[in-house]
C-alpha cells in the first residue's frame, strides 16, 4: 500500500537499461551489467517487476473473429483491384513495352526535332522543288539539245580562234560573200 503513495523509481543510471532489458534489447554487456546490479538493488528489481506486470496487459491484442479478417481481406483486395483498373494508360505502357518504347520514342523525338530545325532555319523550302510540269518547255533539255548549244558556242568563237592562228586559215566563205 505504501508504494501507491510514492512512486519508487529505479536507479537513475539503470532505468533506461531496465526498459531495454525487459524487451530483450541491448547488448550482452548491457544485459549482464543490469543482472549484476539487480542482485543487490531491490528498487530496480521492483521496477522490472512492475514492467512485467503492466506492459504485457497493454499489448494484449483484442481478438477479432475470423469473419472480420475475411471481410477485411476481400475489401482491401477489391480496392486494390479497382485502383489497378483506374491506373492511367501511360503507366501501363511503362512495364510491358519498356523494351521497344524507349528507342521508338527517342527516334521519333529526334526526327521531330530535326524537321523543326530544318523549317526554323529555312533550309527546307518546298517552293525550291518545283514539279516538272511547271518548268517551261524551253528550259527542259535533253542530251542532244545540250550538244547543239555547245556547237553554237564553238561557232561564235571561230573568229577568235582564227585571229589566234594568225590568218593562216582560209577566209570563211560565208562571211565575205
Amino acid at each position, binding site marked *: 500500500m505504501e*508504494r*501507491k503513495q510514492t*512512486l519508487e*523509481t529505479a536507479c537513475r543510471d539503470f*532505468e*533506461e537499461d531496465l*526498459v*531495454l532489458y*525487459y*524487451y530483450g*534489447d541491448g547488448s550482452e554487456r548491457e544485459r549482464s551489467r543490469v543482472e549484476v546490479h539487480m542482485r543487490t538493488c531491490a528498487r530496480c528489481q521492483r*521496477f522490472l517487476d*512492475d*514492467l512485467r*506486470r*503492466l*506492459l504485457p*496487459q*497493454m*499489448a*494484449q*491484442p*483484442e*481478438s*477479432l*473473429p475470423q469473419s472480420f*479478417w475475411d471481410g*477485411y*481481406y476481400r*475489401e*482491401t*483486395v477489391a*480496392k*486494390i483491384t479497382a*485502383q*489497378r483498373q483506374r491506373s492511367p494508360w501511360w503507366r501501363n505502357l511503362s*512495364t*510491358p513495352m519498356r523494351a521497344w518504347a524507349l528507342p521508338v520514342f527517342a527516334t521519333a523525338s529526334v526526327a521531330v526535332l530535326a524537321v523543326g530545325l530544318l523549317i526554323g532555319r529555312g533550309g527546307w523550302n518546298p517552293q525550291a522543288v518545283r514539279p516538272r510540269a511547271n518548268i517551261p518547255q524551253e528550259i527542259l533539255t535533253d542530251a542532244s539539245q545540250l550538244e547543239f548549244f555547245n556547237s553554237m558556242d564553238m561557232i561564235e568563237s571561230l573568229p577568235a580562234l582564227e585571229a589566234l592562228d594568225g590568218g593562216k586559215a582560209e577566209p570563211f566563205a560565208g562571211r565575205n560573200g
Partner: protein
Amino acid sequence: MDNQKPQELRDEELVALCQQGQGQYFDFLVRKYMEKAFRIAFDFTRDKEEAKDLSQEAFLRAFSRIKQFDGRSSFYTWFYRLVVNLCLDYARRKGRVRWQSLDTIVEENPERAELADSRSAPEGQAMAGEAKRRAQSTLKSMPDRQRTAFLLRNHQGLPIADIAKVMKTTEATVRVYLHRAVAALRQSLLEFV
C-alpha cells in the same frame, strides 16, 4: 521461384513480381500484413472503422508505390512506415483521438460479444478496464514520436533497429523515447500494480 507456392514466397520475391507487373501477387502481402497493419492503426486511432480505413489506405499506397521500393530496407519496414505516417497524419488532422476501445464496441453491441477477450476473469475485468483506460489516456497525452516508439515496440514487437528505420531516427533516440513512454505509463498505472 517457379515451383514455390505464392504464399511460400519471401516478401522480396512477391515485391519483385509486383514490380514486373504481376500485381495479383500483392494480395499475398495483404494477407500477410493485414492484421499487423490494422492493429497498429487501431493502437493509434482506437477506432475500428478508422483503423480499417487507414490500414487499407496504407495497402493502396504501398501498391501504387511498389515500383519505388528499392529494397534498401525490408518490405515490412517500408510498409510500417507508410502505416505509421498515415496514422500520425490522422492524429494531426483529428487533433484529438476519440480513443474508443474494442471493449466499448462490445458494450454497445452485446450481440458482438465474441469480440471480447474471453481470457479475462470476471472479477478482474472492471479493474483491468480502468487500467486500460488510464493507460490509453496516458498514451494519448504523449508526444507523437514517443507514442509511436512505444506502440511499435510494445504492441507490435518490432526490434529497436527496425523502429529507428521506420521513424527515420537513430536507435539511441528510439531508446530514449521508449524509456520515457514506459516511465510515464508506469507512473500512471502504479495503483493498479
